């Protein structure tokens, strides 16, 4: 992201503004870019999900507003924004109003540390991956906050279930991440991506040596996203709507937004860790293959990298939606049992296996 940073500093220096101000205020720009892109992505995701669920259940899905129902989510968003914000009388007003935004902001921050292509990471720290895990766990806490602050028994139960869920899936995720760190010898997401780049293309991705970890991580991410079959905190048939029972209008929209942004962010994270991030599955980028080392080719290369990243995460999102159409909801105690008795030991075994594999292979990977 260096060029954007330098451009901004130069722009400020023209008006004699000191560099320190630029250093501090620079991050507003990527934040705005991410939010703008995110809004579009979420609008598309919601429509795609409704369409897909429609196709899975032999319906047409939304098809009234706009061609192919394209404007449906936009119409829904406008409807939600114009609705009245209701705060329950005995709710904790401050926390109740704060909670939706606390779920959304960590997601935007998490998206800021993701390498979209080889030259496009907004904030590149050396321990990106750990930072992502921490940020991804944040919305869970604010969901509990929402459940607790709304002074509703159903919401509280939803929040409590969410806490139980955090306890059970956070550890397997960390162990799987550790095995990836061992494989890549890096805690930086760009480093992890580049560690998967071989001439073999898709065969060099970490989903092959760490297949077990991939499955574990996928299941845990389903739980982290509160997606079916782990949608316990908002189990419709049991808790009405769980933590967001009392929310309406704009605040509900923000919850909805952060839910889908989290889906998008986690799908990207998963494809970086296991599916080679922005790398081409053919081992060689198509733009360099066809256009060679030309100016157009070099510019197109970045777009191609972004395309591959989004394509891979799109496939993951599709599978997640497919699962939603297929599975019933798991019971909370079954989730705990499954996670502590099965996923956690398995993820530790996976870590040991990866360490031994790495030792045997030496510098080959």
């Amino acid at each position, binding site marked *: 992201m260096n060029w954007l940073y330098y451009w901004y500093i130069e722009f400020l220096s023209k008006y004699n503004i000191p560099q320190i101000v630029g250093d501090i205020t620079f991050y507003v720009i990527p934040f705005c870019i991410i939010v703008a892109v995110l809004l579009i992505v979420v609008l598309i995701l919601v429509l795609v999900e409704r369409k897909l669920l429609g196709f899975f*259940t032999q319906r047409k899905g939304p098809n009234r507003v706009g061609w192919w129902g394209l404007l449906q989510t936009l119409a829904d968003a406008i409807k939600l924004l114009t609705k009245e914000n209701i705060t329950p009388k005995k709710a904790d007003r401050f926390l109740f109003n704060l909670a939706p935004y606390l779920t959304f902001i960590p997601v935007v921050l998490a998206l800021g540390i993701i390498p979209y292509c080889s030259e496009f990471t907004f904030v590149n720290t050396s321990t990106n991956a750990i930072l992502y895990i921490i940020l991804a766990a944040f919305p869970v806490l604010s969901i509990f906050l929402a459940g607790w602050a709304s002074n509703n028994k159903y919401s509280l139960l939803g929040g*409590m279930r969410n806490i139980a869920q955090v306890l059970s899936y956070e550890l397997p995720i960390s162990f799987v991440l550790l095995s990836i760190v061992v494989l890549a010898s890096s805690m930086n997401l760009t480093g992890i991506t580049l560690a998967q780049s071989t001439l073999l293309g898709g065969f060099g991705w970490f989903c092959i040596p760490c297949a077990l970890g991939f499955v574990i991580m996928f299941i845990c991410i389903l739980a982290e996203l509160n997606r079916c079959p782990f949608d316990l905190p908002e189990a419709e048939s049991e808790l009405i709507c769980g933590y967001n029972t009392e929310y309406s209008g704009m605040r509900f929209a923000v919850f909805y937004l952060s839910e889908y942004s989290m889906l998008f962010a986690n799908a990207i994270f998963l494809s970086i860790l296991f599916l080679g991030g922005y790398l081409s599955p053919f081992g060689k980028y198509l733009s360099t293959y066809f256009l060679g080392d030309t100016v157009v080719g070099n510019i197109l290369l970045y777009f191609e990298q972004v395309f591959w990243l989004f394509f891979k995460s799109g496939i993951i999102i599709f599978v997640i939606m497919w699962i939603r159409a297929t599975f019933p*909801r*798991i019971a909370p105690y*079954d989730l705990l049992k499954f996670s502590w008795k099965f996923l956690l030991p398995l993820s530790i075994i996976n870590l040991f296996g990866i360490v031994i594999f790495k030792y045997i292979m030496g510098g080959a990977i």
Partner: protein
Amino acid sequence: MTVTTFKLNLGPQHPSTHGVLRLILELEGEKILSCEPDVGYLHRGMEKMAEKMTCVQYLPTVDRIDYLAGFFYSELFIRNIEKGLHIEHSKKTKAIKVLLLELNRIASHLLWIGAFLMDLGATSPFFYAFREREMILRYFEKLTGQRMMYNYFTFGGVRRDIDYLEDVEDIIKILPSKLKDYERIITKNPIFISRTQGKGILDIKTAKNYAITGVNLRASGVNYDLRSFDELYRDIEFNPVIRNEGDSLSRYLARVEEISESIKIISQLLDYLKKAEPLKQNLINPLTMRLPEGEYYSEIEAPRGLASCYIKSTGDEKLYRLKWRTGSYYSVNLLRKLLVGNYLNDAIAIAGSLDIILPEVDK
């Protein structure tokens, strides 16, 4: 550590109470300590209405007792009236009645499968079940003009001769393959099994004490299917579906098996109905109809258990007293016992597995 309990008011407006059931639950965390069902939010005074109307005026409202099994209740009411008037039906009328009753039973069970899976959190089976139910409802609409409140049976027979039998043929041809699909998406689903197996076990003694009937009773291992003793079903071969486990899973499987059992019954009748001569029946003029003085009682195996109707007549054109007995009412009472000690999410699944229909409970 102090353990605090709190009361949770589940319903009457709750997505998974299938209407307006209210359960007052005492919870410790998510564990249920006690359950107090509160019914009556859908009370329409069906029994009092019978005293204010003539029989023919009352007949169309009878379908509304259970909107998923309209044929059963109108058949039950008519059967009770006909008992007093000593009417014999021709073979064809009986065959038509059984055909429609069994189709209605399939439609009811299909809807239950969808709703039950919805309670468990799976959305797709709901649409699949509705797709199959739609075929049956389309046929009912063609035949009777109504999708749910048929008002097709009448005193002394049926309103018109049966028709469009090729539609029924299609239905019983398609349904078995769809049931196999259900098996693949539902019965072989490990999460479904873990959510239902061993949950909400209803033992024989409790079932008998709480007067549970129908599929719920048979899934607990009691061979009691009223169709075995029913006059209508005399010439029809079928095996009552008995399962011994008594848990939610066995109630689910029993209903699915009952669908295929009903398909067998229908296919037996289809061969006869296609060749049968045109319908001949002696319909009673409902305007001059008077039920002789006395008390009458009849019962039928409805999809949600034994349904019975008691009538006391004084020989007037209006009935003196009418009493309905419906299966769901007793299932709701069972929740008091069955839910205690379970977790909230299982409670929803167990209550769903009993197939409670609230209009039937409140009447």
